[in-house]
C-alpha cells in the first residue's frame, strides 16, 4: 500500500508540474470564458448558453488531458527507463498501475475542479445563477474521464502511446453514442447490426447514462437512481480495466 501511495504522489507531482498541462488548462479557461460572448448574443438565455458551452469545453479539455497524460504515463516510464529504478525495488506491477491511476485521478481532480469552479463563478457573476448543477455536471464528467483514463492506461500497456490516446478518444466517443446507436439499430430490425451494436454497448462504457449536462442547463429531469447505478458500473469498469492492464504489464520485460 505504501508503494501505491508513493507512486500516486510521485505521478501527481510529475503531471501537475508539466507545463503542457498548464497550457491546456489556460486554453480551457479561455474557452470557457468565450461562453460570455455566446451568452451575450443569445436573447434571454445567457446563463444557459454559458453553462452549455462551458460544460462542453470542460469535457473536451478534460478529455485531452485524460487521454494524452494517461497514454504517456506508462510509456514514459518504459521509454525513459525509470521502470528499471522502480522494479528493481520491491514494487509490484499492480502497485505501479494502481499508483499511476490514482496519481492521475488527483491531477484530473485539480484540473476539473479548476475549470468547474471557474465556470461556476462566471455563471454566477455574469448571469446571477449560483448553479450547483454545474458543479455536479463537472463531477460526473470527472467520473466519465476516470473511466477513459483507466481504459487508456490499459491500451498503453499493449501498444504505443499515440495508439492508446486514439483508442481512448474512440472509447469516449463510442461511449457517448452507443446507447443511441443501439436504439437506432433496434428500429432497423436487422439482427446482425443489432447484435453488433449490443456488443459495442456492453463492451464500451455507457457514458451518456451518467452525463448530466442536459440536466445542468435545465433541459432534462434527472433520474438519480439510474445515474447512481451507472456510476457504480463505471467504477467497476475502471477496476476491470486496471486489472487487465496489470495482467498485461506483468508479462512485460524491460
Amino acid at each position, binding site marked *: 500500500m*505504501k508503494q501505491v501511495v508513493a*507512486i500516486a*504522489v*510521485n505521478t501527481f*507531482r510529475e503531471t501537475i508540474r508539466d507545463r503542457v498541462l498548464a497550457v491546456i488548462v489556460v486554453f480551457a479557461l479561455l474557452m470557457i470564458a468565450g461562453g460570455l460572448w455566446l451568452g451575450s448574443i443569445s436573447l434571454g438565455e445567457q446563463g444557459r448558453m454559458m453553462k452549455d458551452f462551458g460544460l462542453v469545453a470542460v469535457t473536451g479539455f478534460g478529455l485531452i488531458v485524460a487521454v494524452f497524460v494517461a497514454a504517456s504515463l506508462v510509456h514514459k516510464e518504459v521509454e525513459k*527507463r*525509470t521502470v*528499471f*529504478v522502480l522494479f*528493481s525495488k520491491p514494487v509490484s506491477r499492480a502497485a505501479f498501475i494502481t499508483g499511476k491511476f490514482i496519481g492521475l485521478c488527483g491531477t484530473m481532480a485539480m484540473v476539473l475542479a479548476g475549470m468547474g469552479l471557474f465556470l461556476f463563478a462566471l455563471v454566477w457573476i455574469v448571469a446571477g445563477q449560483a448553479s450547483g448543477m454545474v458543479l455536479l455536471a463537472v463531477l460526473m464528467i470527472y467520473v466519465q474521464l476516470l473511466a477513459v483514463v483507466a481504459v487508456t492506461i490499459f491500451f498503453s500497456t499493449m501498444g504505443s502511446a499515440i495508439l492508446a490516446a486514439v483508442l481512448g478518444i474512440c472509447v469516449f466517443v463510442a461511449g457517448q453514442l452507443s446507447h443511441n446507436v443501439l436504439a437506432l439499430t433496434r428500429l432497423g430490425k436487422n439482427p446482425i447490426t443489432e447484435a453488433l451494436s449490443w456488443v459495442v454497448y456492453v463492451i464500451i462504457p455507457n457514458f451518456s447514462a451518467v452525463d448530466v449536462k442536459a440536466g445542468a442547463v435545465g433541459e432534462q429531469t434527472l433520474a438519480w437512481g439510474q445515474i447512481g447505478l451507472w456510476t457504480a458500473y463505471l467504477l467497476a469498469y475502471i477496476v476491470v480495466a486496471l486489472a487487465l492492464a496489470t495482467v498485461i504489464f506483468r508479462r512485460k520485460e524491460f
Partner: protein
Amino acid sequence: MTAAALEVRALHKTAHVGFSRRPVEILRGVDFTVGPNEVYGLLGPNGAGKTTTVKVALGLMRPTSGSVALGVKGLSHVGYLPENPYFYDYLSGREFLGFCARLFGFDGAARHERVDGLLRDVSLERAADTQLRKYSKGMLQRIGIAQALINDPELVLLDEPMTGLDPVGRVEVKRIIERLHERGKTVMFNSHILSDVHELCSRIAIMREGRVVWEGAVAEALDEAPSLEDFFMKVVTG
C-alpha cells in the same frame, strides 16, 4: 546472507526481435558466483550480456533457462544503479530520493535523515532542491547511486557507475564503493574502466558473446599478464 551473495547458473536468455520474432541468443549459459562482502567486477565488451545478466538477476527480464539466486531476502535488500540512468524531470533530487525511500516504507524523520545523509554522501546537498532536468550527467549518475543505496542494501549492483563522471566524481564513487565494502556490503559492478576495476575489485568475471569466459581473482589475472587491460584483451580476443 547465505554463502554466495549472488549465484548465477547456466543462465540463458533468448529474445525475439523484429516483426518476424527472430530469436536472438543474448545469454548462452552464464555462470558465476559473487561471494559475500566482495567487490566483484563483471567485465566484457559491449553486447557481451552484462546488463542483461543483471536485469535477469533483478527480475526485470525472465530467464529462458538457468537460475539466479540472490543471497539476500528479496529486492528489499538490493540496490541497483542502471546504465545511463534517467529519472523524473520535474522532481528535485530531494523529492526523488524521498520517493525512493517511500517505496521502501521509510516514513517521516527516518526518511528525511536517510535522504539528507545520502545527498551529503554523493555531494549533492547544494543541488538537493533543483529539479533533475537541470542536473548534469555526472549529477544524475550521483543521484542514481544515492537512490541505489536508499535502503542500505546488502547487495549493490551498479551498471557502469563511473560513466559520465569527471575525475572528482569518479574518485567520490570509488570512495563510496570502498565504504560499502568496509561496511560488509557486497558490490558487483559492470565497467569498461579497467583501472577502476583493478583498484576496487577482488574478483572479476569476463563475459564474451553471452558467456563467462573467465572468472577469478584480479591477482590471478595479473599473474598471467602485465596489466588487467592486457589480460582482458587476451581473454576477449583469444
